[in-house]
């Protein structure tokens, strides 16, 4: 789901080499180079930007951009990988501490630095794979790259990376388990201990605090008041929460780069919250979850899910979608949407969410992060 992006990722920024060993990245590079060979790509450029879309270069380097700026990993078919970071040279020690890549170049114009690199490595002309440049790079920078690479053949390499990122290795699964556990603890805390004040801002501050103390790198929180007419998800405001009111709470947490997402509908008590459940909604959620198996088309699940909801006493609220893949971005591809061309695959992590309204016009929302194995769907956030 879309959330306010922070001006700075402010949480714990480390590379734990036990959780994510360097060998994991070498395996990815090896696999990428195999794919590059198939497409005759001489050098692959992986671009990412900002607090949400840092995944492409991070997948190879482990480096995640802390501010809404760009970074690019250049992977030649042979030789060393280079990481180009939009930032200042004095920030290099911090960058070096979280990546195994030795060649780090700081600059204020990623496109120009990339062109300089390609010239130095005699890669103009050549066949270049682009991932994320067209979709994410600021247009003036993208235009300067395109103008300067007239003699190069450009291959759209985003599908190669998407396909690889969709399947989560065991290391990646564990990282998503860790971010999921943080979400569980944050939700448990607001249900088990009194808040200093029943206020949206205090709820947000408490969830943020618990997650940060557990080592979260980034946290996103949205709330909604489903008892209010025309309610929508939104950032917390300085508004009190009365005893008996419902509040939908969306929390997404990144731990050492990897995201998880959870949504709960809470009923407010005098000083804390209790999860509000509905048997109909829970049954529906489980039915939809059981539709998801490796090999099933995403669009088929959407059709069947909507059909199932129509048969139920609940009304579906479509604006927040059914979910999406999750990992190095809170919103990875594919989205669980009718227009998707993808299939669910083994070892994919995704979020499944449902916003529903019952016959009494009471709305609720629920959502969890799920790991799909060959024969099992494991809910990571409960």
């Amino acid at each position, binding site marked *: 789901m*879309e*959330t*306010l*992006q*922070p*001006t*700075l*990722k*402010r*949480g*714990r*920024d*480390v590379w734990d080499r036990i959780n994510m060993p360097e060998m994991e990245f070498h395996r990815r590079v090896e696999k990428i180079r195999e794919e590059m060979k198939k497409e005759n790509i001489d050098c692959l450029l992986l671009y990412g930007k*900002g*607090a949400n879309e840092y995944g492409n270069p991070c997948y190879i380097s482990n480096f995640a951009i*802390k*501010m*809404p*700026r760009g970074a690019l990993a250049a992977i030649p078919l042979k030789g060393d990988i280079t990481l180009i970071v939009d930032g*200042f*040279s*004095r*920030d290099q*020690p*911090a960058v070096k*501490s979280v990546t195994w890549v030795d060649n780090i170049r700081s600059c204020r114009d990623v496109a120009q630095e990339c062109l300089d690199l390609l010239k130095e490595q005699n890669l103009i002309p050549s066949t270049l794979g682009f991932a994320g440049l*067209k*979709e*994410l*790079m*600021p*247009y*003036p920078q*993208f*235009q300067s790259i395109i103008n300067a690479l007239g003699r190069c053949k450009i291959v759209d390499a985003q599908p190669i990376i998407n396909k690889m990122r969709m399947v989560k290795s065991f290391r990646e699964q564990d990282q998503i388990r860790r971010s999921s556990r943080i979400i569980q603890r944050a939700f448990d805390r607001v249900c088990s201990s009194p808040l*200093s004040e029943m206020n949206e*801002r*205090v709820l*947000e*501050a*408490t969830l*943020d*605090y618990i997650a*940060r*103390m557990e*080592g979260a790198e980034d946290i996103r929180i949205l709330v909604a008041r489903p008892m209010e007419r*025309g309610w*929508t*998800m*939104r*950032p917390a405001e*300085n508004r009190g929460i009365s005893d008996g009111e419902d509040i939908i709470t969306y929390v997404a947490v990144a731990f050492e780069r990897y995201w998880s997402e959870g949504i709960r509908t809470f009923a407010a008590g005098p000083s804390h919250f209790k999860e509000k459940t509905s048997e109909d909604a829970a049954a529906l959620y489980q039915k939809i979850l059981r539709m998801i198996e490796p090999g099933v088309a995403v669009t088929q699940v959407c059709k069947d899910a909507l059909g199932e909801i129509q048969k139920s006493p609940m009304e579906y609220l479509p*604006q*927040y979608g059914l979910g999406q893949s999750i990992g190095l971005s809170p919103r990875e591809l594919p989205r669980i949407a009718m227009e998707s061309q993808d299939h669910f695959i083994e070892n994919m992590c995704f979020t499944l969410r449902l916003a529903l309204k019952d016959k009494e016009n009471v709305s609720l929302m629920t959502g969890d992060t799920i790991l799909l194995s060959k024969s099992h769907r494991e809910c990571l956030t409960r």
Partner: protein
Amino acid sequence: MPQENLKLERAVEAIGEKGLDGLIVYSNGTCDILGAKNLFYFAEFRPLGPHNAAVISKSGEAVLLVEPEWDAARAKRFSWIKDVRGTADFIKTMPDLMDEFKLTRKVGVVAYKEMTEGVYKCIGKKADTETADDVIAEMAYNKTEKEVAIAREAGRITDKGFEALLKHARVGITEYELLAEIEFDMRKAGADDIFNFMSSEKQNFAMHSPTDKRLSPGDIVIAEITAAFEGQFIQLCKTVVLGRPDPVLAEKYDMLLQAHDASLRVIKPGIPASQISRSMNKVISDAGYAKYCYPPYMRARGHGIGVGSIAPGAVIDDDTEGILKTGQALVVHPNQFLPETGYLACGETVLVTDTGMERLSKTENKLYTIEV
């Protein structure tokens, strides 16, 4: 006249002066502190989706287009722009909106650098474009009374953040736990965004995001604490020592305080912003550190500060040409690497007044110590 009407009036004036059909103030929903957040400032609404824009016609009609569609409800509550439209597909909707507003010849585009190819082309296929970031930057310099009150509140929250640092910095706490404590207090005090960096070593090289490093006796904790209230950022740069400070550190920090005071004394409307930097550098140079007055030993002597970013005003160094204006907020910081002490943080945010400047936070400027 209400301020929002002034914003619209100035935008329409600029459209006329530049011979445009209209203006598109775009946002990709992110906030890079180094770049102006034009839509946030202009529409008084911080977007969360990937594509958003205010579209203003030369006759003064204004629409706020917001993606995702569901965020339009929030935009309607916060923005002074009455005509708010949600869209699930900005790139498809924008050309229709340009037709509706007759933006078919030449249009001014604010935040062109935030646009991806798809966004730029959906505008470019309807009209010629020219960058118009200066239109919003000009508006943002002079703070209204309401904006000054917001800045003071942000200053209060920033002070709370530093109080929390003094309360929680202790031997054994990790950097990330310390920042979590600081930000918990800042959030509860009303911060709607936070931009905090720190470092905790015997000699620091630069501030960074928090790590697993545990604070130990003798550590010098440097921190840049920046809170936003209703989008307006206010910053404090401070240094705290765990334990009795080394006399050399105390002496060098005193030199930075003198440099800071010297720069504050020159602030008044009409002077070039470079004077702030030059007066600061003179004190540091006279103390024998002239070569350290340039990168990589420091970055800038200050910068503007506003809604979601350091704009308007940009970076302040010896060559900054901008002239200080009444109502302008700026950060003044002789943050400095010195060979004997490492990088030290020292600075605060001030408001340029008719007669000089007003400090926007109450935290005293000094080298802080915590007993261990």
